């Protein structure tokens, strides 16, 4: 079983939910990232989504946009992001790592070269916000050959017919976008998310993680009651940005936040 599948299965078996956290690689400085990843893992984070900084992150809200800009100010490249994963893997072979970003970063490197480098670094999954399954063929097979999952998103506006088609291509887990909006938006409606997740369950055996708009222990707990995974990003990235002047304080701060989320979810 893949590392991703194992992380989801374990939590499901223990009656809890998988905690997925997002940070932008190199934000607010490249030296922070691996330490922050380790701190998150030690607080009970199961899956780390590592954002590939991109100049035009059109699906992101203001927090993650700012995170991308802070990372790009250090000229963080996709190659550097992969090196960070490799460094993290030297001390952690348990936590799953999923790269998340935009297609152009991967295309600039080339699908084959990227898949090879991601595999060597120890990447478990890839999410590309603006790559729909219809256009994903070559990258998907390049990743699949190396045991890396290409994770697709479903949204409140996705019709059931389309969801079925997307799910045929899906692997790893399903990322359900909980609201119409950008990352970090404030209009999460937990009841409608619960309903949709229940309906998606009848279409796929894959674990379903819910993200966008989950910002604290309380909202994480409510979502954990029905979702296999809870994704938290913007609030973490904002916190890291606020500590940009004292980067040495970041690992402890993200660890505290992750622990709060973990405890809230385990109490669900």
């Amino acid at each position, binding site marked *: 079983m893949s590392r991703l599948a194992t992380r989801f299965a374990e939590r499901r078996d223990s009656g809890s939910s998988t905690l997925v956290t997002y940070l932008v690689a190199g934000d607010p400085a490249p030296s922070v990232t691996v330490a922050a990843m380790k701190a998150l893992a030690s607080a009970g984070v199961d899956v780390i989504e590592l954002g590939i900084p*991109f100049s035009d992150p059109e699906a992101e809200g203001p927090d993650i946009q700012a995170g991308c*800009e802070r990372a790009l100010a250090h000229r963080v490249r996709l190659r550097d992001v992969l090196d960070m994963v490799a460094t993290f893997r030297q001390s952690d072979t348990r936590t799953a790592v999923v790269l998340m970003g*935009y297609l*152009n970063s991967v295309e600039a490197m080339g699908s084959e070269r990227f898949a090879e480098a991601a595999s060597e670094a120890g990447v478990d999954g890839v999410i590309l916000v*603006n790559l*729909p399954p219809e256009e994903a063929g070559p990258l998907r097979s390049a990743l699949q050959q190396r045991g890396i999952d290409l994770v697709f998103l479903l949204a409140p506006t996705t019709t059931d017919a389309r969801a079925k088609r997307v799910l045929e291509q899906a692997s790893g887990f399903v990322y359900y976008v909980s609201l*119409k909006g950008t990352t970090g938006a404030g209009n999460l409606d937990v009841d409608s998310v619960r309903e949709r997740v229940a309906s998606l369950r009848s279409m796929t055996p894959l674990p379903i993680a819910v993200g966008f708009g989950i910002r604290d222990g309380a909202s994480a707990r409510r979502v954990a009651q029905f979702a296999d995974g809870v994704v938290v990003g913007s609030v973490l990235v904002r916190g890291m940005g606020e500590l940009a002047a004292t980067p040495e304080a970041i690992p402890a701060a993200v660890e505290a936040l992750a622990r709060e989320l973990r405890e809230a979810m385990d109490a669900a």
Partner: protein
Amino acid sequence: MSYEKSMVTSQAPASESGMVSFADYNFPDEHGHFGRFGGRFVAETLTHALEELDRVYRSLLKDPGFQREFDRDLAEYVGRPSPLYFAERMTRELGGARIYLKREDLNHTGAHKVNNTIGQALLAKHMGKRRIIAETGAGQHGVASATVAARLGMECVVYMGAEDVERQSLNVYRMKLLGARVVPVTSGSRTLKDAMNEAMRDWVTNVDDTHYIIGTVAGPHPYPALVRDFQSVIGRETRTQCMAIEGRLPDVLVACVGGGSNALGLFHPFIRDENVRMVGVEAGGDGLATGRHAAPLCAGVPGVLHGNRTYLMEDDDGQIIATHSISAGLDYPGVGPEHAFLKDLGRAEYTAVTDEDALRAFHHLTRTEGIMPALETSHAIAWVMEHAPGMDREQIIVVNLSGRGDKDILTVARHDGIEL
């Protein structure tokens, strides 16, 4: 409109560029591909809205009532057909090919942009949307969007890069007078591409009641085809007018290319006429060699941005790089995917003109013909000034005079060292 045809009769040519002749030209395919370009690369939340837009558009194309409504608006509200004007003095002074100007500057709101906003506003109305959003660079598309929104009583929000808000203050005020809210975008490079990002973010949030009027032949499918079809009235009229005046088709079509909607509007009805040469002029800024320009077709590489695959200005890590042009409307790192396709096919040729040459052309046309072109349009005029003298006197050039230059007077004055 050709989109309907290309959607319905999707037998002919494969989406690869393996056409036998341009008589078969019929793109995009049903997935919005122009060969390897185009497509629909968007966040999942928007997919449904794009499918819906595609469906409604296709059904309205078959609806004679919609076509009549569009044609009537173009005639009575926009003032079409726009004249095809023989620039006699400019022709004489340059001493070569006969130069005609397709006068899109005479349209209501002063540019070709309104052809598309009229069409998309009708679409929005048919889809029951009550809110319009748009991105704008020079402000012409923002003004054209605010105009149609005012006319239909719709709410309108225009996203504009903070840098463009400063250099196009007259258009910002025009939009406000029309009742639109202009939102300055301060992220990224603070220009058109960032305005487009912000408009996408708005749309993803308000997709239920909002229609996004993209202003150029770029973006996710079906926008490149839909905007092209609405703008193709330019080329169709040109064809008829040139036949009436000269008894034959033009030898060369010239237009400036930012996203490329005025150029494609002129070119598209002539693609199958292989003897008609088509020249797109990009913004050369300080010169291609300096890297400070906005000419992805001349100096870019294929990549994916704003929903489609096309030529982009990016670094070797895939980051979109800052562009530069004196004209805000051309200051964009991408270009419509059909232009990328026509470039690869060799059917259209693309070149670049510097800020300096565009300014010289602005003054030249103003002084010789009493017509003040937009700085965007001035790039196309500059190409004509360079190439018309070397052409035969019997040859015919048609330039798309895509917009008027009133909005640029402050920029030109500043450049000439004049305080107004």
